[in-house]
């Protein structure tokens, strides 16, 4: 039987009389987290008459680190049973097929372990980007295709368009600049962008809420979550400590090669020792408070020296820099830039993109030279290059 064709159209359309009215539209999988954004995506596509399937990823077992239980508002963290329940209720409300898929193994390998390793190595990671690249638009998309949905829609605020001239897919900032999430999506490949739908990219958050209310979605009034989904109450330090403890006992080794950062020295940029630190994973570049030392002027974390296990501090001026190197770059509207590029570069999520010159060193590495010094350029974060609304690409700050 011509199975592939059938799977790509509405399943069950096998030619019997009852199926005559069945649409031949391709099914789209909606990644549903149980939040208002992805729920509204499902509702919008449903309202448009799109054939859709709701998929919720089970990424992390909240019961795994029992000592973190009871911290923070549990109901608004992803993968809590409450969120899966919310996603299911929305799917029931919309009368669409809905499935929970277990990606706990992939999530731990691709997101959680690198997150912990980065902190231990003195970097400040962005787990959401890894999750998008390696889980949502990789594993989930693969599963979506296996079950007959060739495209995947998410609640991201971003836009994708196809450029007929270059025959490439382009990533654009959301219409609602305050909600734009392209900073987390720069790593999407052409194939991933070709299969992505971001219906909220054209809407403001206000419009999304109103749509959710108009369609009487069960999550219309649900508050937003800005936290890292697997880290309770925003305390990544406690998460790392619990995770390493669990790995130590569960793995029967020293945490699979990972060890909690040892205490070390706090030094100034000129090498003066100011006191002890509690392990580098406790600090991020740009941090001011919580250092436990007083020198009579504001001092900030300037760098985390993983090799020497030193926390380097300095004044505000020392925190500013014009140059950084970026690796593992994904270019979007072109394979690789022909020459030096001028772009606005964002170095953290809420950072106002700053003018810079980008010099490609190899097809996937570049030197970024800002016109004005930027505060707290942080290894482990992403540098994302914009030309106006368009995302040219991005990579990881060394």
């Amino acid at each position, binding site marked *: *039987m011509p*199975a*592939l064709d*059938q*799977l790509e159209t*509405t*399943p*069950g*359309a096998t030619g*019997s009389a*009852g*199926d005559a*009215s*069945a*649409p031949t*539209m391709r*099914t789209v999988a909606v990644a549903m987290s149980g939040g208002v954004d992805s729920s509204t995506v499902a509702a919008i596509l*449903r309202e448009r*008459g*799109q*054939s*859709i*399937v709701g998929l919720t990823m*089970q990424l992390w077992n909240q019961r795994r680190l029992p000592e973190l239980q009871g911290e923070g508002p549990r109901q608004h963290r992803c*993968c809590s*049973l409450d969120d*899966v329940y919310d996603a*299911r209720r929305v799917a029931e409300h919309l*009368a*669409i*097929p809905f*499935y*929970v*898929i*277990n990606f706990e193994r992939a999530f731990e390998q691709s997101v959680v372990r690198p997150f912990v390793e980065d902190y231990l190595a003195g970097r400040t990671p962005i787990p959401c980007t890894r999750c998008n690249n390696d889980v949502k638009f*990789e*594993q989930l998309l*693969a*599963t979506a*295709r*296996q*079950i*007959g*949905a060739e495209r995947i829609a998410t609640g991201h605020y971003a836009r994708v368009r196809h450029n007929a001239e270059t025959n490439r897919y382009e990533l654009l900032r959301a219409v609602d600049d305050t909600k734009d999430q392209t900073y987390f999506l720069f790593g999407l490949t052409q194939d991933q962008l070709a299969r992505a739908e971001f219906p909220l990219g054209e809407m403001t958050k206000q419009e999304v809420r109103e749509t959710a209310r108009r369609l009487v979605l069960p999550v219309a009034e649900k508050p937003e979550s800005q936290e890292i989904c697997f880290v309770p109450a925003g305390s990544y330090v406690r998460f790392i400590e619990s995770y390493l403890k669990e790995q130590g006992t569960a793995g029967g080794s020293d945490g699979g090669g990972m060890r909690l950062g040892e205490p070390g020295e706090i030094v100034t940029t000129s090498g003066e020792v100011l006191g002890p630190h509690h392990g580098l994973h406790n600090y991020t570049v740009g941090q001011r408070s919580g250092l436990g030392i007083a020198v009579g002027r504001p001092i900030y974390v300037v760098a985390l020296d993983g090799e020497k296990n030193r926390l380097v501090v300095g004044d505000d001026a020392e925190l500013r820099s014009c140059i950084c190197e970026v690796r593992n770059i994904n270019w979007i509207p072109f394979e690789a830039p022909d020459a030096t590029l001028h772009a606005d570069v964002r170095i953290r999520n809420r950072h106002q993109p700053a003018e810079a010159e980008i010099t490609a060193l190899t097809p996937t590495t570049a030197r970024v030279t800002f016109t004005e010094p930027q505060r707290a350029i942080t290894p482990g974060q992403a540098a994302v290059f914009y030309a106006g609304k368009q995302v040219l690409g991005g990579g990881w700050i060394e």
Partner: protein
Amino acid sequence: MQLNRQQIGGRADAVSARPASRVYLDYNATTPVDPAVLEAMLPFLGANFGNAGSVHTPGQLARAAVDAARDSVAALISAAPNEIVFTSGGTESDNLAIFGTVAQSTKPRKHVITTSIEHHAILHACDELARQGVEVTVVPVRTGPGLQGIVDPEEIRRAICPETILITVMHANNELGTIQPIEEIARIAADAGVCLHCDAVQSAGKVQLDVGKLGVDLVSVSAHKFCGPKGIGALYVRAGRQISPRAWGGHAERDRRAGTENVPGIVGIGKAAELARNLLVEDSARIRSLRDRLETTLLERIPNVRLNGDRNRRVPNTSNLSFPGAGGEALLIALDLQGLACSTGAACSSGSTEPSHVLLAAGLSRDDARASLRFSLGRPSTAADVDRAIEIVPSVVERIRALSPREQEAAAMHAR
């Protein structure tokens, strides 16, 4: 049985990824209530609403129906009516059997034996026993090829010690369908003077079940596995065998299970038991031939498929197959979207799936366990259902294998 969309969700959609018609091959999960069962129950949800514990005439009418149902359930398993305790279902029956037996024992140290392929209603109850200080031995099953998924009675014998107070072994496994050698185990238990409980939730109504011949002390059954309603089951308690109640209240069920009798449910299980008993021979022969045709055809048409569980010693309605290279989760969803309902391992609380403990216990690798599907047939199953499954499954397996991330990696490597 072909169900239409109205029957499934009650919402006829102009546009949905849901197919218009469905084939249901998941009767081990649950069965529809037989129309005759529904008809028998309806008066007890309406005019005959009496409490079976009341003295007056409405109460007597309810009591008469409960007594008749008890006769019928007893007849299904060749027991006496006073050996039947109605419960809320298989899980409660299992828990009552286990905790009721342990609480009854006066031994200072207590030991319970079970197997690695039991339902969670048994295994998780045994976990709780262990937390309470009872020693628990979980006996493995044979990992095949011969007698795969079947416990070796000698393993049970070896596990018995002076402290052993209970052996609990299922009759038919819910995932593999394999039938356990209960008679042999019963002889071993009797020699040692140990109580034997048998979870027969997946065999009652599917194969002949004679508690006397089996030689068991306690047996759990559940109505919704044989075309009765959900929320009603029974525990057989051999005459003379004492169990402590797990809930205290009135004197229902001879003080063994307090609580107002679920009269409509009890009437339902009674009628369902009567039908199952009358139709058993006919149903099982027909279902077996459908199952065999489905299984043989899938094994022929799909490359690299493996049958899990011993081929001969199993209930006639179940077929468990591994499709290496195709994830069971994706298989299950893709088949559902094509209108075929079947099952992978047991679903966890969030609705997603972990590899089945039964398949792992039967010796499958985690990957193969994840790549497995259970097809289970029932009284409403038709030749058309099997035809449709044979039409759908091979192409879905092929697609999922071709699009599995591992395959694509391999293809990409090849291309380089």
